[in-house]
């Protein structure tokens, strides 16, 4: 378990600044030479939501609890799927259309496990992590209260 705290601090994080998909994938790949598959999910700000044109997004999180929930998702993914490593990065604050919002990277020996774990993790994130999205349209700003 030595260094586990540090590794997790890097692999699971919430930040306002952008992140690098490449660097995160490389960080995850370092976990083992037995990795044969790396599956990534990248969430991006869309220009349309429920038929309305979106001008911008803003994300708010519950500091402390949100990070805890993300770390918990990583731990449960490592326990319940045959994966080697997982990274979860979520941005908060103002996000433009086309900008990255969230990145989940799952690595495993064989691809099925990484696909399953990655898809599970983003679904679990939407379900359990206290993060909220505000959409700005021509009509104003509205907090989104459902996860499609």
């Amino acid at each position, binding site marked *: 378990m030595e260094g586990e705290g540090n590794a997790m601090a890097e692999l699971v994080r919430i930040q306002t600044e952008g992140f690098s998909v490449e660097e995160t994938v490389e960080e995850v790949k370092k976990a083992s030479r037995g990795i044969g598959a790396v599956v990534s999910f990248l*969430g991006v700000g869309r220009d349309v939501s429920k038929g309305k044109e979106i001008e911008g997004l803003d994300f708010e999180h519950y500091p402390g*609890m949100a990070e805890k929930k993300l770390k918990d998702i990583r731990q449960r993914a490592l326990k319940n799927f045959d994966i080697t490593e997982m990274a979860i990065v979520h941005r908060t604050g103002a996000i433009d259309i086309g900008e990255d919002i969230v990145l989940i990277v799952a690595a495993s020996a064989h691809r099925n496990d990484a696909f399953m774990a990655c898809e599970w993790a983003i679904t679990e994130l939407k*379900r359990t992590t*206290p993060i909220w999205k505000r959409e700005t349209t021509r009509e104003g700003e509205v907090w989104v*209260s459902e*996860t499609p």
Partner: protein
Amino acid sequence: MVTVRFFAMLKKFAGAETREFDVKAPLTLEEFKEVLKKEVPGLSAVLDGRSLLISVNQEFAGKGAVIKDGDEVALLPPFSGG
């Protein structure tokens, strides 16, 4: 004191991001919700709704939860991260 945190649209209903409440003796979650409704009438409908989650000290709280002096409570509308 019990600190209550409000997120997303609830900040508007509560008129603040956090508020402090004096809780002398431990209260059940249901009792604490009654205190909140009385002190912040704008939250009544939200507190009676089915879509609100409540956390105590950053853990989801069930009906049996107890709230005591020093706790941090948060009202969590449906999440929309990811």
